[in-house]
């Protein structure tokens, strides 16, 4: 533990609680002293502080001790009174204001970092004026009447030798009228130690007269109490003192004057000796004596058991009468005052034990008397004594707290005392490193006086900072509290200072509400002081206050703009927070050899384009073979490092601006910040020169470019955008820079103007560097926006393309003609055009001569059209890459139009990518070719659901029944079914019934379904492989589903055939073409408008393609039973024998072994249970069928009824069946592929009636072709087919 005397509090106490000497002087004395620019008091004060006085002191005990440090406090008699409160307040305010002014320079600097504040030593953080202020505050309560240590111990009477009748003057000086009130009103003893001093001014002549007066004085007042002081010994007044002791007073006078300039070294020493003697020979012995006397008195009256008892008894009796809180009833002669004086004297002479014992004694008395103020004063002193004795800390703190509370209890008059007590208490706690407790005491000191409490709170905050560990949250909070109070007292500079310190606490945290409040107020206050620049920087912090309420945000923004306006400047703020820039959204679109027809095309992934362009652009296709060699050849190294753009073509940068506020903000003149350093032509011409050379060149050029900035401005043009962003909105802004000359273009950042006053800048660099490092091979993971540095090369021809009349949405099957228009703005022609489309199923390229044709009409079959024309079309196979004719070159004004065909094949969202490759005529350029990329999105809606069911026609071989189901799936659209065509010349299709009867309505409306039947005929006569193997040659057969007046469409026409080919490829199931599969094309068209036909017909039709519809039924074989249907026979003669022919056709490509089994009886064991059910089902079906017949023919009725009866009886009776198969019950035959065989059959019938001859089954077995093991697995290798119903009616011939 450190010596309490060396702590700040100890030093303070040794300074403040010392004997007071009252100085009385005549005006002439003052006059002499003022020659030096000093008053008498000022002249003497520096010498009243002794560091090593070394005086032996003996107080109550017999053991003397030596005092080393000692101090006298000198006051004029007029100052010894309680200071006027108002004056004191004013002075304190001045102290604070001055301190505020001094700190002004610091206000402009940056606020300190929190880590620095915590780590730096105490003295640096704590403003030095706190101590001064605290001292002044303590002085406001000096010379109070309840304490004795401010009462003068001695009196120094000073008379000049020039005064007339000096002896009388001495007497006059101690006239009671002039003496301070405390001596007169009985608070202190008027009989005090007097010392007489005669001052002689050596400039007024020799000191002889003075010596005479001195002897006279000595005889009058006593030899020891008189002194002569000669001053102003120097005649010229040019004495300069080293370590001038009066420097302290310099500020009060004019700085040019040397203080004490007439005082030479003799005077100096004389003053010193005088003061030393005064204290050591007079004051200290006097105090010693007084202590001894008082101690004896006190011992006699109060010490000891008897006296205590007596005192108690006596006090109790006094209770009723003495009840005044002021306690002014104690005169100096009362024993209580005596004890207090004894204590204070002992304290001043550092006999703390003695002081403490007396304070204790008196404190109980005062408490009993309820003299609270005095009690508090004594408690306070006790606390201090405990502290200085370094005894019981708890006791000391208890006493201080007690004193503090008691002072507060005494009402407003005690407030100042309480403050002083609190300050001492704080110092005591601080000396013991109890900063946290000290802070709470500071907090308690805060009274009504706002200004004082501001200072106290600030001091409290520093206590929290100094606490171990530092309590930073509270530090910040108290700074804010203090700042608020400063602001209330108009101490704005202090307020700013505290708030600025507080910012260090909240910096980097997410306590946005508090931070906004702080910065906003600092900004406002700076603006109040007129320091707008600093104000703006603080206001910037609060701009992006997304958490605040709407009104607050409005206030913030409004104030900010006001302050900015007041500055009269346009600020350029790096990283302005409003609006927020989403850097991850940064997207750069530039065109080197890749050009884009639309922004949408640019946003498509590069890899998609890359795969599409792989086989049309030369470098890309060869890159694969040897990338290492090739890259260096194709593009010079230099250009690989940065992107290439073309002069005159805009580089687009997209970036998101977000408004974090709830109020809309307006942003104007959003532009890019770019640098373009021009490059000389030689580099262009010598593009193959080594990298290092190029670099140097570029660097030197850059230097020159930056020198003359004017060239920069004109070398590129920037787009400017004004936007207004609503609350919480995010807007993607598209900015453009168009370089005009060759060189290196660097996109540095973006700038914008907020509300027309503040310019915000945002630089992209920082994250660019990061990306560069992370980036691997450029080609590999290229994405636009990686790099913001561009090499601008000279302007190149550029194609612009657009596809006209491409709908955004279409119904499935939609087929129309589109026009691709290509333009080249520059004069240089482009050539070698190639085009590739990613979805040939949806988009195909037409021929140039198709451009003028009218679409649906051109497809119509001309009556006299020759087959040769169709043959020509037939040869055209859709290619992956479409090569434009060699002779085409586009330049200047004339655009190139080229027809395209669109077919919306399947529903869904279809992305169509079209890339057009072209070569520039200029071979000197770095870029030899360019590609135009077009992207369209097509939404295809479902329209007609077309399904086919094909079943073999039971009545005819190689004929099939086609069941077409069409369902309109749209919501509102209606379609007009136009025709159904089959593809391939071997097929013929025809309607079973006239279309009008099936479907009298012309159009199929939304949600409607239609089904109709067709007969499909395979008219292929001979098996010829060459015809089936060329399915691309489309010759079709059509069935019109419309009025005969309408023309049929020629399915071998160019778009239909092309798209059909694509569909065939798409819908293929098996790798091989199935000869039994048939392709259908259903063509429908939009309903004809009922209005005047003059309005152009729709330019499109719908075509639905169903490919590879298999005609095969359950097995590879089809058969037909041929024979008579109705016969007349005379059964009375004999049974009837009928010959039948079964024709079997093998439609598979393998040989089939077939066995025909016939069953005579339904209950025969050869028949499976399946057959039974089948058979039972058939007659019932027949029965229902039969019911219709009687209407037609009367004659048949009888026989038919009979027949059924017979049938029924045969079933019920389980007797012999009415007919039997004759001949062998099983016939086997082997059938080669695609061949027919005929098997004769015979049936014997015994009675007339109608018979169903379906009691047979065909067992077939595929004969495995050698090496076709797989085939056998895939297909069913064997199976059984049950016979068809074959109805035979026999009539009894009459």
């Amino acid at each position, binding site marked *: 533990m450190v010596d309490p005397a060396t702590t700040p509090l100890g030093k303070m106490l040794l300074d403040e609680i010392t004997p007071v000497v009252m100085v009385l002087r005549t005006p002439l004395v003052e006059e002499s002293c003022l020659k030096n620019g000093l008053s008498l008091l000022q002249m003497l004060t520096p010498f009243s502080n002794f560091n090593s006085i070394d005086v032996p002191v003996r107080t109550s005990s017999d053991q003397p001790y030596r005092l080393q440090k000692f101090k006298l406090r000198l006051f004029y008699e007029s100052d010894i009174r309680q200071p006027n409160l108002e004056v004191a307040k004013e002075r304190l305010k001045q102290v604070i204001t001055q301190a505020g002014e001094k700190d002004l320079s610091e206000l402009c600097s940056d606020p300190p970092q929190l880590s620095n504040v915590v780590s730096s030593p105490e003295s640096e953080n704590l403003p030095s004026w706190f101590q001064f202020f605290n001292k002044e505050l303590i002085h406001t309560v000096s010379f109070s009447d309840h304490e004795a240590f401010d009462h003068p111990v001695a009196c120094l009477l000073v008379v000049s030798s020039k005064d007339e009748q000096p002896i009388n003057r001495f007497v006059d000086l101690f006239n009671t009228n002039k003496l301070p009130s405390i001596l007169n009103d009985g608070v202190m003893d008027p009989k005090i130690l007097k010392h007489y001093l005669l001052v002689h001014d050596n400039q007024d002549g020799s000191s002889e007269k003075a010596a005479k007066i001195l002897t006279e004085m000595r005889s009058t007042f006593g030899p020891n109490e008189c002194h002569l002081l000669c001053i102003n010994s120097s005649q010229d007044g040019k004495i300069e003192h080293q370590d001038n002791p009066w420097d302290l007073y310099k500020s009060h006078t004019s700085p040019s004057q040397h203080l004490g300039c007439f005082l030479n070294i003799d005077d100096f020493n004389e003053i010193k000796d005088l003061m030393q003697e005064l204290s050591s020979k007079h004051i200290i012995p006097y105090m010693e004596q007084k202590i001894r006397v008082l101690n004896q008195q006190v011992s006699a009256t109060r010490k000891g058991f008897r006296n205590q008892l007596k005192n108690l008894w006596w006090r109790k009796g006094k209770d009723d009468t003495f009840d005044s809180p002021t306690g002014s009833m104690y005169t100096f002669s009362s024993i209580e005052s005596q004890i207090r004086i004894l204590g204070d004297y002992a304290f001043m002479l550092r006999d703390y034990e003695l002081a403490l014992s007396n304070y204790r004694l008196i404190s109980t008395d005062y408490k009993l008397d309820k003299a609270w103020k005095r009690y508090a004063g004594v408690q306070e002193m006790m606390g201090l004594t405990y502290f200085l004795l370094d005894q019981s800390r708890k006791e000391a703190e208890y006493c201080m707290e007690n004193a503090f509370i008691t002072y507060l209890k005494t009402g407003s008059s005690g407030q100042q005392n309480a403050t002083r007590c609190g300050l001492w208490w704080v110092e005591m706690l601080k000396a013991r490193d109890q900063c946290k407790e000290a802070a709470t005491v500071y907090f308690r000191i805060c009274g009504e006086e706002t200004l004082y409490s501001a200072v106290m709170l600030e001091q409290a905050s520093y206590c929290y900072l100094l606490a171990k*560990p530092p*309590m930073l*949250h*509270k530090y910040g*909070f108290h700074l804010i509290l203090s700042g608020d109070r400063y602001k209330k007292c108009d101490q704005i500079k202090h307020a700013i200072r505290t708030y600025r310190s507080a910012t260090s606490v909240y910096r980097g945290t*997410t*306590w946005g509400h508090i931070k906004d409040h702080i910065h906003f107020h600092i900004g406002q206050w700076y603006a109040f002081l007129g320091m707008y620049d600093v104000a703006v920087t603080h206001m910037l912090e609060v701009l992006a206050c997304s958490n605040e309420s709407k009104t607050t945000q409005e206030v913030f923004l409004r104030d900010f703009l006001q302050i900015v306006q007041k500055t009269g400047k346009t600020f350029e703020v790096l990283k302005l927070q409003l609006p927020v820039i989403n850097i991850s959204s940064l997207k750069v679109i530039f065109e080197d050899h890749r050009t884009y027809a639309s922004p949408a095309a640019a946003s498509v992934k590069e890899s998609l384009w890359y795969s599409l362009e792989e086989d049309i652009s030369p470098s890309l296709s060869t890159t694969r073979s040897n990338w290492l060699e090739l890259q260096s050849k194709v593009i010079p190294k230099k250009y690989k490092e940065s992107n290439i753009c073309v002069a005159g073509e805009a580089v687009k940068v997209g970036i998101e601006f977000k408004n974090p506020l709830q109020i809309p903000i307006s942003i104007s003149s959003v532009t890019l910040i770019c640098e373009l350093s021009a490059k000389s032509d030689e580099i262009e011409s010598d593009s193959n020169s080594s990298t290092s050379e190029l670099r140097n060149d570029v660097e030197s050029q850059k230097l020159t470019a930056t020198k003359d900035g004017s060239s920069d401005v004109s070398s590129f043009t920037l787009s400017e955008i004004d936007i207004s962003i609503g609350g919480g909105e995010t807007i993607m802004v598209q900015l453009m820079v168009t370089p005009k000359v060759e060189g290196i273009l660097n996109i540095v950042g973006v700038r914008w103007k907020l509300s027309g006053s503040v310019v915000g800048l945002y630089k992209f660099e920082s994250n660019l560097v990061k990306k560069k490092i992370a980036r691997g091979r450029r080609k590999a993971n290229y994405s636009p926006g990686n790099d913001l540095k561009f090499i601008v090369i000279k302007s190149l021809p550029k194609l612009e393309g657009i596809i006209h009349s491409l709908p955004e949405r279409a119904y499935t099957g939609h087929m129309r003609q589109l026009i691709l228009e290509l333009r080249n703005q520059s004069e240089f022609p482009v050539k070698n055009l190639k085009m590739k489309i990613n979805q040939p199923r949806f988009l195909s390229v037409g021929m140039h001569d198709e451009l003028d044709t009218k679409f649906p009409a051109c497809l119509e079959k001309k009556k006299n059209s020759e087959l040769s024309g169709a043959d020509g079309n037939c040869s055209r196979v859709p290619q992956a890459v479409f090569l434009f004719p060699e002779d085409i070159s586009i330049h200047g004004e004339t655009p190139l139009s080229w027809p395209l065909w669109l077919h919306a094949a399947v529903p869904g969202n279809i992305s169509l990518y079209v890339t057009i490759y072209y070569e520039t005529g200029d071979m000197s350029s770095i870029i030899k070719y360019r590609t135009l990329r077009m992207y369209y999105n097509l939404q295809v809606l479902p329209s007609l659901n077309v399904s086919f069911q094909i079943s073999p026609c039971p009545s005819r071989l190689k004929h099939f029944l086609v069941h077409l189901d069409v369902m309109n799936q749209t919501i509102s659209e209606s379609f007009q079914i136009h025709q159904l065509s089959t593809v391939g010349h071997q097929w013929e299709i025809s309607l079973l019934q006239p279309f009008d009867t099936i479907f009298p309505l012309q159009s199929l409306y939304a949600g409607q379904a239609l089904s109709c039947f067709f007969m499909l005929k395979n008219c292929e006569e001979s098996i010829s492989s060459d015809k089936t193997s060329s399915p691309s040659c489309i010759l079709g057969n059509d069935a019109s589903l419309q009025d005969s007046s309408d023309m049929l469409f020629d399915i071998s026409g160019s778009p239909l055939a092309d798209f059909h080919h694509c569909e065939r490829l798409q819908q293929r199931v098996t790798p091989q073409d199935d000869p039994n599969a048939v392709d259908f094309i259903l063509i429908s068209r939009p309903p004809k408008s009922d209005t005047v036909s003059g309005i152009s017909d729709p330019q499109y039709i719908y075509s639905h393609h169903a490919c590879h519809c298999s005609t095969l039924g359950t097995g590879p074989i089809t058969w037909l039973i041929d024979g008579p249907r109705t016969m007349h026979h005379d059964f009375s003669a004999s049974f009837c024998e009928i010959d039948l022919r079964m024709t079997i056709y093998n439609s598979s490509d393998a040989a089939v072994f077939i066995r025909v089994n016939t069953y005579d009886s339904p209950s025969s064991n050869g028949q499976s249970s399946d057959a039974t059910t089948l058979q039972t089902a058939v007659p019932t079906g027949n029965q229902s069928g039969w019911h219709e017949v009687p209407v037609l023919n009367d004659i048949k009725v009888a026989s038919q009824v009979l027949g059924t009866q017979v049938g029924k009886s045969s079933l019920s009776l389980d007797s012999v069946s009415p007919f039997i198969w004759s001949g062998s019950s099983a016939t086997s035959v082997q059938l080669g592929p695609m061949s027919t065989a005929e098997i004769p059959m015979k049936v014997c019938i015994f009675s007339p009636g109608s018979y169903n001859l379906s009691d047979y089954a065909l067992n077939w077995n595929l004969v495995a072709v050698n090496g076709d093991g797989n085939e056998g697995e895939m297909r069913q290798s064997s199976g059984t087919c049950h016979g068809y119903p074959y109805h035979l009616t026999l009539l009894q011939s009459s």
Partner: protein
Amino acid sequence: MIVCVAVVGHQNNPLYIQSFTEEDDALKLHHIVHCSLDVVDERVNNPKKSGPTLNETFLGLLYPTENYKVYGYLTNTKVKFILVTTDLDVRDADVRNFFRSFHAAYVDAVSNPFHVPGKKITSKTFANRVSTIVKSFGLSSAG
């Protein structure tokens, strides 16, 4: 009456502050909550003062200001709950119960897979639940 509840993350970052007063004293309450963090730190760093058991989450009365009483609660993940109340006569058991249900609500809120740990809690459900808890606290202490 409870005037404010707050959730403060383990880096002393505010996750949720809600005041339940009519007047516009959000700033004051922010400050009070912010200040109380010092006391929380103190309690945590001097475990001998912090209560009888080692795993005690309830920190008790942090400090009384002129008008308020501030209570604290520390979860295992070092997330702090602060309660500011104007009731001068509050039973510890009530506060404990309050914090327990508040903790449950908090756990549910951060268990939301869409909640980013360390970010402010924006869940409306949480806010509703908290206000219900706060209301019920007022009732239980009154009755």
